[in-house]
């Protein structure tokens, strides 16, 4: 299993541009999450999904959108990028039953200038 994969690894955006961060997991996990981590800080939840077709907001959803059309994929869309969205973005997944740990992807480092 590849686990949780994210693309791209790095990206520089200009203010006002848009982009989609990709996240895929091959563990057949029901739950998926997007977090952002600002320098020297803990992670904050942006959006999450408990299954295909179901998404909900986390702590810091403004400026982002998500969709979940399949169990495997959970893309995060940034519209009209702003410098405040400069951060490292982590995708995570988790099974509904059994062990509770969340498995994290390698992260996408995004800079908005």
């Amino acid at each position: 299993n590849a686990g949780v994969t994210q693309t791209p690894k790095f990206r520089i955006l200009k203010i006002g541009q848009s982009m989609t961060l990709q996240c895929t997991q091959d563990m057949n996990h029901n739950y998926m999450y997007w977090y952002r981590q600002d320098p020297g800080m803990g992670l904050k939840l942006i959006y999450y999904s408990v299954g295909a077709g179901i998404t909900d907001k986390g702590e810091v959803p403004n400026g982002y959108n998500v969709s979940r059309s399949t169990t495997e994929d959970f893309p995060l869309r940034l519209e009209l990028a702003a410098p405040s969205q400069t951060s490292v973005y982590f995708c995570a997944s988790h099974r509904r039953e059994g062990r509770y740990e969340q498995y994290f992807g390698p992260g996408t480092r995004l800079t908005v200038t």
Partner: protein
Amino acid sequence: ELKVEQNPLFLSMQEGKNYTIYCNYSTTSDRLYWYRQDPGKSLESLFVLLSNGAVKQEGRLMASLDTKARLSTLHITAAVHDLSATYFCAGGSNAGNMLTFGGGTRLMVKP
């Protein structure tokens, strides 16, 4: 709304010493997680604590949970340089298992 606070934020210690990182949380949390993060890397799961009094150990790290005090601790025994990293605790909610993270403790172990 769950809030999670860790202390200390930064810890510099000598190899061979013992120390404890503290994680306080504000409201009832169904489970408590500890993660390790190396610079520029993703998060690695260390422990998941599910009930009051839970204690888990892996190598030189031991985590415990006191739900009545809303406190979890990560104890480091006889620290070695390889343990240098940032350690995060996070509280989990039943609904959607959303995690609320503490600010992290940056640990430096000096030879």
